[in-house]
């Protein structure tokens, strides 16, 4: 049974949203010109916010360190442009609240060209020094979660990594930034993969790509250097194929036990963008100061794949893409299934911003909510085999503690249940409410 499942190269359950990738999948990545103002939030990754390393009014060079990691689970920040620090303080965050950030004004006369930083030879670095270098390069998971990458490299005693799994699934509709990256920079991807593989001591690199990107599969296969143990695995087109535990299930046929991490089954998972960022730093001396962003959706005049300096306001990106179409009502940072709504056009592009999607009002508000008729579609959609309809009901009744018995903590909020619900019940949103409540609740006596 297990070997049979392995042949299918997929996980169980999941949903099949339309791809909507036609808009941008054939558009080569363009470089976005430099603008005037940049905002670098101190907490744009999961974990501890950074500590500023510059003062207001200080001139900064593109690529210069501007904030140090605030702890182990934290990654450094670098200036995306040559210019001057204008202000360190509260700036508008993605969700509409305020967040600590460093404001930088670009020098309009600068060429914005920089000589690469001197980077120590990665082969001679010890693992600890390598981990620190990754942290100081500011590299985080580029798939959307923005989890500091170096944390995954430090392994506890007794845990060994056998496989480096590179995630090129890009299962979110609309997004094509990873697709373009694989097509346009396969050599960098494979270089970065080799660095990671050797440093982790893994025996093999596996690149998982959804089968709807045959050109990317083909390109990468052609670029694999002789002697590199790299395998490209085409995966079934299904959402959420790019969720790391689902991809491990698809590729290796094993389930990562609940509460454990991929490393516990000997796998290290990284997004293709993260791997390219590793190559850019260790081979070209470029810390993480820009990323590829897909700008798409029905509300964008000229959809594009853009290399955007981090900290660029969404407003500038939209202006570069010809502005918003009339009737645009919602901008999402990330994909349409798991992305975050953007509260203001002044919000900057973050390290985890894989896409900026503009929607009209219709897809979000037109539908009425009906009572749950217990049709079970959410159960058949949930890749974690939870009972979302029950969890949603319990969340409505504020039975958050009881929800733990129904494994609410295993939910990764992929949104399959809400996508599948014919009654248009905001199931995953209700589950998020409960998880938030549980996470922020103070223990008695605290």
């Amino acid at each position, binding site marked *: 049974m297990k070997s049979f499942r392995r042949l299918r190269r997929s996980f169980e359950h999941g*949903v099949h*949203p*339309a791809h909507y990738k036609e808009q941008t999948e054939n558009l080569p990545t363009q470089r976005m010109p430099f603008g005037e103002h940049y905002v670098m939030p101190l907490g744009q990754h999961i974990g501890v916010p950074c500590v500023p390393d510059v003062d207001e009014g200080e001139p900064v060079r593109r690529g210069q360190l501007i904030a140090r990691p605030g702890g182990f689970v934290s990654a450094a920040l670098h200036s995306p442009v040559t210019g001057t620090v204008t202000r360190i303080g509260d700036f508008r965050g993605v*969700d*509409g609240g305020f967040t600590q950030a460093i404001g930088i004004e670009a020098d309009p006369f600068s060429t914005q060209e920089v000589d690469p930083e001197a980077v120590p030879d990665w082969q001679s670095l010890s693992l600890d020094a390598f981990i620190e270098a990754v942290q100081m390069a500011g590299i985080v998971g580029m798939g959307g979660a923005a989890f500091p990458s170096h944390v995954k490299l430090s392994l506890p005693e007794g845990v060994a990594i056998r496989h480096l799994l590179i995630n090129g699934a890009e299962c979110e*509709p609309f997004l094509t930034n990873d697709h373009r990256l694989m097509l346009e920079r396969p050599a960098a991807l494979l270089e970065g993969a080799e660095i990671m593989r050797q440093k982790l001591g893994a025996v093999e690199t596996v690149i998982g790509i959804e089968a709807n990107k045959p050109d990317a599969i083909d390109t990468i296969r052609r670029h694999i250097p002789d002697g590199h143990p790299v395998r490209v695995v085409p995966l079934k087109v299904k959402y959420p194929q790019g969720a790391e535990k689902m991809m491990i299930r698809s590729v290796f046929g094993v*389930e*990562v*036990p*609940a509460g*454990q991490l991929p490393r516990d089954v000997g796998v290290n998972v990284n997004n293709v963008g993260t791997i390219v960022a590793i190559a850019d730093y260790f081979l070209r001396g470029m810390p993480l100061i820009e990323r590829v962003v897909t700008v798409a959706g029905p509300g964008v005049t000229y959809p594009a794949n853009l290399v955007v300096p981090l900290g660029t306001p969404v407003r500038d990106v*939209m*202006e570069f893409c010809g*502005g*918003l*179409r*009339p009737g*645009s*009502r*919602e*901008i*999402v940072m990330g*994909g*349409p*299934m798991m*992305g*975050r*709504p*953007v509260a203001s*056009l002044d919000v900057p592009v973050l390290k985890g911003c894989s896409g900026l999607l503009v929607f009209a*009002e219709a*897809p*979000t*508000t037109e539908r009425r909510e*009906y*009572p749950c*008729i*217990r*049709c*079970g*579609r959410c*159960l058949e959609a949930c*890749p*974690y*085999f*939870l*009972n979302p*309809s029950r969890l949603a009901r319990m969340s409505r009744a504020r039975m958050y503690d009881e929800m733990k018995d*129904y*494994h609410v903590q*295993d939910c990764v909020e992929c949104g399959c249940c*809400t*996508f*599948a*619900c*014919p*009654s248009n019940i*905001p199931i*995953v*949103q209700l589950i998020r409410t409960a998880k938030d409540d549980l996470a922020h609740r103070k223990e008695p006596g605290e």
Partner: protein
Amino acid sequence: MTDKEPRLLLFHAPLLRQDMTTPRTMRDVIVALLPATAAAVWYFGLGAVLVLAASILGAAVAEWLFAPRASRGASLRDGSGLLTGLLLGLTLPPGLPMWMAFLGGFVSICLGKVIWGGLGHNLFNPALLGRAFLLATFPIAMTTWPVITPGEFGVQAGNLALPFMQAGADGVSGATPLGLFKFEQQVTPLAELAFGKIGGSIGETSGALLLLGGVYLWIRRDLDWRIPVSILATVALFSLVLVLFDAERFPAPLFSIFSGGLLLGAIYMATDPVTSPVTPKGAWIFGIGVGVLVMLIRVFGGLPEGVMYAILLMNAATPLIDRYTQPRVFGHEAESS
């Protein structure tokens, strides 16, 4: 950039939905029932139309009357009340007085759905609850089967009885294939069962058309195929075993499947998502339970037909089935709850 800054909405992901909606599901079931309904009108004439109209009207009136004032009419638009009325009508004899059908539809909604908290909260299938009410209240009218009259669009004698009056003495009364088999050991040919030239409730006439509607629902992914498949397979297997014992005394598998309300119940009523288990394993248990109960009642019970009671009994067991068939969660060992 547009001149005016857009006021951005903050709807949370996922922003995409598949295009199936609950009202569409209800509409699909109604559409799937139309061929069998048309066949019933052909066989029973205007009487069937009157009974169906009365029970649908009864359901709609109750739905409107008991809806909260703010959302009055909204619950009618989702189509579930109309579907209940139609399903109830299809289980009634074509000669039933209209006022009884109206009352049945009314009771289906108010006792079967509203008092539980509305759509999605009821424990029992509303249409079958309405039918059980009618059967308990008007046992004679509910078991008087008029003779079929294909192509004649007359009104049945009983249809126009005044409210709170029973039908007048009915000249001719027919019998259902199950009744004939049970009480007179007379087997109805399969072709007649499949295409509906038989006496019985409005909706049970044409097994083939009911199956056709089931296939349509399956293609549109509106029903959990496990439930009808397990019910029909259980019934077939059960009667196969019985026939091996005594082919004279017990019904053959195909006769068991096509006679009575089994197809109507298995495809359209047992699959009511509200009152059947949500888990796949639960659906199998539910279907097998219905199949076994149907055969037990038909073969060993005092009644010729038992689909209604079988489904209602399994409806009652649904919460329990759901509790014990919760799926194993990803990354967890299978747990016994």
